């Protein structure tokens, strides 16, 4: 017995030694910074403290309390939820649609189309934004010209507070659907053709086959795609930053939580308050992820 436990202890020590390099990196570059920002979020570290550290005070949860009373924060949170709830499903459906098309046996040059659809994902956002700004131009934009052909009056996409966020959603969906599409294609390829054949012999139509074979067998892919898209979309930053010139305008219509955090931190240098926003965003994402997992697990069972 003693021999065995001594062996186990040695084994544990060796194991610890083996994970040590990884653990060390994780602690240095993840745990410590997170801990430091948690501490920062409990202080009023700001511009004055940058010059004179003694000007920083511990304020407990005041940063968090203030956020809850800040209408701009709620506006940013609302915008972010709009983006996730509208943009997320839109992006995932686009990805699935494109994947189904690409996976169809009658489609020729599938590889070419896959590359084309994937191209926006690897294109620099700043370049994409420049082009989309032209597309959205109220007078000379392609989009309004197309709408004009069917008699819809011009929309001021980026200038009108009601349309600015939908415009960002549209651009983000176009930019991002290719990544999920690739994952869906892989998922679809993994579904054995024999199942479809058997169903067809049993008289199942295309819609039935999609609902009863494709969807259930794609469930793990859906879970993965859904989660990564949700998490990514909650962190919305670059799209409104570039499209609104870093401001989140017009009238905060495209201000996301992450952009609000950036403005607090690097425009007003309220570092403490920015750190608090980061933790609130983290809590929101964690909550949304757990909820989504539960829902999808529930529908699977």
């Amino acid at each position, binding site marked *: 017995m003693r021999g065995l436990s001594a062996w186990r202890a040695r084994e544990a020590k060796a194991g610890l030694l083996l994970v040590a390099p990884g653990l060390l990196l994780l602690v240095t570059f993840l745990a410590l910074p997170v801990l430091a920002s948690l501490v920062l979020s409990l202080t009023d570290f700001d*511009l004055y403290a*940058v010059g004179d550290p003694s000007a920083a005070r511990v304020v407990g949860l005041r940063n968090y309390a203030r956020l809850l009373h800040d209408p701009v924060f709620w506006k940013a949170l609302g915008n972010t939820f709009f983006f996730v709830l509208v943009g997320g499903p839109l992006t995932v459906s686009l990805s699935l649609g494109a994947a189904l098309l690409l996976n169809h046996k009658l489609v020729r040059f599938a590889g070419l189309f896959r590359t084309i659809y994937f191209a926006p994902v690897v294109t620099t956002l700043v370049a994409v934004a420049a082009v989309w700004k032209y597309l959205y131009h109220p007078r000379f934009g392609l989009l309004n010209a197309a709408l004009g052909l069917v008699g819809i009056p011009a929309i001021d996409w*980026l200038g009108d507070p009601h349309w600015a966020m939908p415009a960002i959603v549209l651009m983000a969906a176009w930019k991002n659907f290719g990544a999920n599409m690739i994952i869906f294609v892989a998922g679809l390829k993994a579904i054995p053709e024999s199942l479809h054949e058997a169903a067809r012999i049993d008289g199942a139509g295309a819609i039935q086959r999609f609902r009863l074979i494709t969807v259930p067998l794609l469930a793990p892919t859906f879970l993965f795609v859904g989660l990564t898209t949700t998490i990514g979309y909650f962190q919305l930053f670059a799209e409104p930053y570039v499209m609104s010139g870093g401001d989140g305008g017009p009238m905060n219509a495209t201000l996301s939580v992450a952009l609000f955090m950036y403005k607090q931190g*690097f425009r*007003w240098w309220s570092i403490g308050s920015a750190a608090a926003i980061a933790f609130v965003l983290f809590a929101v994402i964690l909550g949304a992820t757990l909820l989504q997992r539960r829902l999808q697990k529930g529908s699977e069972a």
Partner: protein
Amino acid sequence: MRALAAGLVLAAATACSGGADRTGPVRLWAFGREGEVVRELVPELERRHPGLKVEVQQIPWTAAHEKLLTGFVGREMPDVAQMGNTWIPEMAALDAIEPLDARVAASDSVKADDYYQGIWETNVLDGVLYGVPWYVDTRLVFYRSDLLAAAGVPELPKSWSGWRAAMEAVKRTGGSGHYGLLLPTNEWAQPVTLAVSAGAGLLSDGGRHGAFRAPEFRRAAEFFVGLYRDGLAPPLANSQVANLYQQMAAGEFAMYVTGPWNLGEFRRRLPASLQGSWATAPLPAPDGMPWPGVSLAGGSSLVVFRSSPRKEAAWKVVEFLSEPATQKRFWALCGDLPARRSAWDEPALAGDARTASFRLQLEHVRATPKVPEWEQIAAKVWERLEPVARGAKGLDATLASLDADVDAILEKRRWLLDRKAAEAPK
């Protein structure tokens, strides 16, 4: 907390490099177009001071503020830099910039009384001078003189009531889709300019509290929101004005309160047929107050950094760029208006009626409150006034909540001032 902050500073210190040697070139940071143009002035400076080398780093305006602050944290500051004059309080609070009183007193070329006083004042904090004005910005009225004349208004009125009547007349003659004034809702300078015209202090007790409930600010706010409420100005943000110059040419807006950068733009972008039909004029004043109305003292100054090991050489750069002859050349290169009165004797500047309006306006400018929190406060002004302009909220309640917002922003400043006062007797 102290330990953490000390850690941050330590990390910053170890990242420090360069700059320690006294003989290297003078590093000058300049922003946007100014950064491009100042390069052309350098050869003359180097010719006059053999041994002096200047290295210009051009930084885009949109990145400038962040770059200055991260530069400070990372101890990577230049020797001398252009500085938007509203940023000076912040840089002074960080103790990043050098007081210049002694150098100006000893200087043969920088003469305080040759500068527009309101502009000079933006560089003075608690009696200490931190910057020398380089070029100036202020806002006044650009207008379509033909549209005003057609509406029976021969020249821009000098009082607010006359101004408003002119907007009404232009709107009547123009018909629907035509407005008296373009008043972009996202430019905080618009309501704040009206407020300083009305004599509002904006902050009180040396920048400890908001003073937005004061009768002066209330008067300006009432005038401001009334223009939207009565349809004299469209409730549009800048971004919603697709092409300012086309719309100005089409007569959609007859007037716009804007700055000298638009002198060149109006000349370039309005069609040739309209070149005789636009003019500028100093701001109208609130009824009962002397004309012209007071505008905001904007523009950029030149500052020397405390961390610089080459302050003597850096000051030579400031002196050179401040010389009337250099100022004239700078104006010719990029159109930035000179900060010195004596540079305005240049015939091209003095002889042009549109530019001359600026000369008069510059004698009547005031600085925005000189606290580091100002931009944050300014952003709140429209945020709070917007529902009033839409008619969704009352003015008095709004001004009270604006004061509450601003008092919350200034809480830290009050604490620091109190702490300083408590430490002083020791």
